[in-house]
């Protein structure tokens, strides 16, 4: 068992393109950490540096406290599951699982025991004699995971392992990976661009953007208190609504002047003086917006229903507020016909303010957690 630390790790490709900027990250022993971000944000490069498949331009990678910068991938005591499965097409499932053990000189009886045990865990015992081309996508992914399990590594690395599976299978495998972590009690680092996987799998998520970690923390904590506009927009589906505007001070309250409306900000929301000179964006999540026809002035965002997406258990109401489009998530039975006037009242304790230019968070107050 071992943790992983990255100390000021940087990766610059020949030609000057920086994939990962100076980055430090501590992953505790047995922790399940998810690196999430859009494609090209450097998350896979980071994972490959930990695996030893890429060499960091600068900085140090430590696994279990041991610096591994010059250590070959095979000697790092890690296992990796690839997005494309990367199982050997010319070998049977059994040989795929056993190959790494044989290369390491594990005695045949021991290798056989481990292969059968892993196959049992993953429910692929009946497929051991088959070749990869005779397997479905989900079965191939199980083989890929099995190949990692038999190695009994200190650290598991997952590189978008579910992105080639269909939606139903993805949900199923997500659950199995979570259970696998509980069962094996091993450090796991999981890379994905899927925010649902990030929210559901990780004990901790690190949201990455353009080669940097924007925010790191427990999934719900990051969801509730995004440090930047990028994080706020990336986590959550549909994403957070952003309304451009400026701040103004009245005698008693801070007012947000949007395009065509004024909203009084809640009293607990403290904003530094510099925020009043800047263009800002007000952020509010779809589930924190309710329609209230009786809403008092300066407590709502006015608009009209553009369209409604009924999802069965809930509905997504798209509201046009001047030029801005806002999505409000509501219970399925509330009626909102197209064209109907809306007074969208945000939950006062769940508003966020961001600088329009840099996207950094302006309000000091922490939002109350998702109920």
């Amino acid at each position, binding site marked *: 068992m071992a943790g992983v630390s990255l100390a000021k790790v940087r990766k610059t490709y020949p030609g000057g393109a920086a994939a990962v900027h100076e980055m430090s990250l501590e992953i505790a022993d047995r922790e399940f950490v998810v690196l999430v971000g859009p494609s090209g944000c450097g998350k896979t490069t980071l994972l*490959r540096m930990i*695996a*030893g*498949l890429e060499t960091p331009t600068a900085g140090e990678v430590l696994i279990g406290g041991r610096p591994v910068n010059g250590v*070959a*991938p*095979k000697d790092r005591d*890690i*296992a*990796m599951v*690839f*997005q*494309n*499965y*990367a*199982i*050997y*097409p*010319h070998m049977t499932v059994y040989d795929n699982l056993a*190959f*790494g053990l044989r*290369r*390491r000189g594990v005695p045949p009886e021991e290798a056989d025991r481990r292969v059968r045990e892993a196959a049992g865990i993953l429910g692929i015992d009946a497929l051991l004699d088959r*070749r*990869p*081309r*005779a*397997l479905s*996508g989900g079965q*191939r992914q199980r083989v890929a995971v099995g*190949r990692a399990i038999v190695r009994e590594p200190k650290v598991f690395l997952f590189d978008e392992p579910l992105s*080639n599976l269909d939606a139903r299978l993805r949900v199923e495998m997500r659950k199995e990976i979570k259970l696998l972590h509980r069962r094996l009690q091993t450090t796991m680092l999981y890379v994905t661009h899927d925010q649902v996987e990030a929210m559901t799998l990780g004990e901790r998520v690190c949201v990455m953007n353009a080669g940097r970690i924007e925010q790191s923390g427990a999934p719900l904590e990051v969801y509730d208190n995004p440090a930047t506009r990028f994080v706020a927009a990336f986590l959550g589906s549909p994403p957070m609504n952003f309304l451009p505007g400026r701040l103004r001070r009245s005698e008693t309250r801070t007012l947000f002047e949007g395009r065509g409306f004024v909203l009084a900000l809640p009293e607990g929301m403290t904003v530094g003086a510099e925020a009043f000179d800047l263009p800002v964006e007000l952020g509010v999540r779809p589930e924190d917006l309710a329609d209230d026809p009786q809403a008092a002035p300066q407590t709502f965002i006015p608009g009209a229903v553009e369209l409604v997406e009924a999802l069965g258990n809930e509905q997504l109401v798209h509201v046009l507020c001047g030029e801005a489009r806002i999505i409000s998530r509501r219970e399925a039975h509330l009626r909102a016909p197209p064209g109907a006037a809306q007074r969208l009242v945000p939950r006062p304790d769940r508003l966020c303010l961001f600088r329009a230019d840099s996207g950094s968070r302006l309000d000091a107050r922490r939002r109350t957690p998702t109920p």
Partner: protein
Amino acid sequence: MRWLRPAILAALLAVTGYPLVWMTFSALRTEGDLRAQPFALPMRPSWENYRAVFAGAGFGRAYVNSLLVACAAVAVSTGAAAAAAFAFARMRFRGREALFLLFLAGMIIPPHVTLISLNRLMGPGGLDLKDTYLALIGPYAGFALPMSVLILRTAFEEMPRDLEDAARLDGCGAFGIFWHVALPLARPALATVVIFNALTIWNEFAFALTLVSDRGMRTLPLALWEFKGERGMMLGQTCAALCLAVLPLLAVYFAAQRQMIRGLTAGAVKG
């Protein structure tokens, strides 16, 4: 135009297949019969021609020589080409592209241009290898390299990077990746290279004529040629000898073409 493609294929088959059929039939007919009616069918098949071929001097020996030389040259060229192609496809080193171009440049040298210099090189005062197997194996393997490297490099380049990474994590070094993963996956390309080289080497005449003068070291093309020289073109016997000469090529072809079936990489990565 549904019929067009089958029609063209049938015509091609007739053009390429007929000489083979004629050769096979003619080998089973007596010389007199053959001279009288060159295109008739063998109504009373006779194995006399085959017997005569083996009774004549040196055909069996030439056959064995050819087998030895061809097997060795194909093995050497394919092995060396695979190793070189793997390095060109999957390893980074200084001067890689320049070196590769140099290999390819070998393809634009007509082999026969080198005959005189090779003759000197192999002769006394040079390597002194004339009338040995090595005199033929070396040049054959060398001239087979450029094309083989080109074909195999393309095949190795097609191997997904993830597979290479997986093998590295599984404990393979460069050779392990080459041996356990890249080579088995390149079987279709290897089969192509083997067939192509075997065919060229088996039929090679000019080098053999130049570099071998000892009758006991002659290869099959030289032995076949002598059917014409010594006996005033014995048609039936020549056909019988040719039939025998074709057999190993057919064997190589059928053994290797099963490997050429596409889709061997299916299942490696998604899709």
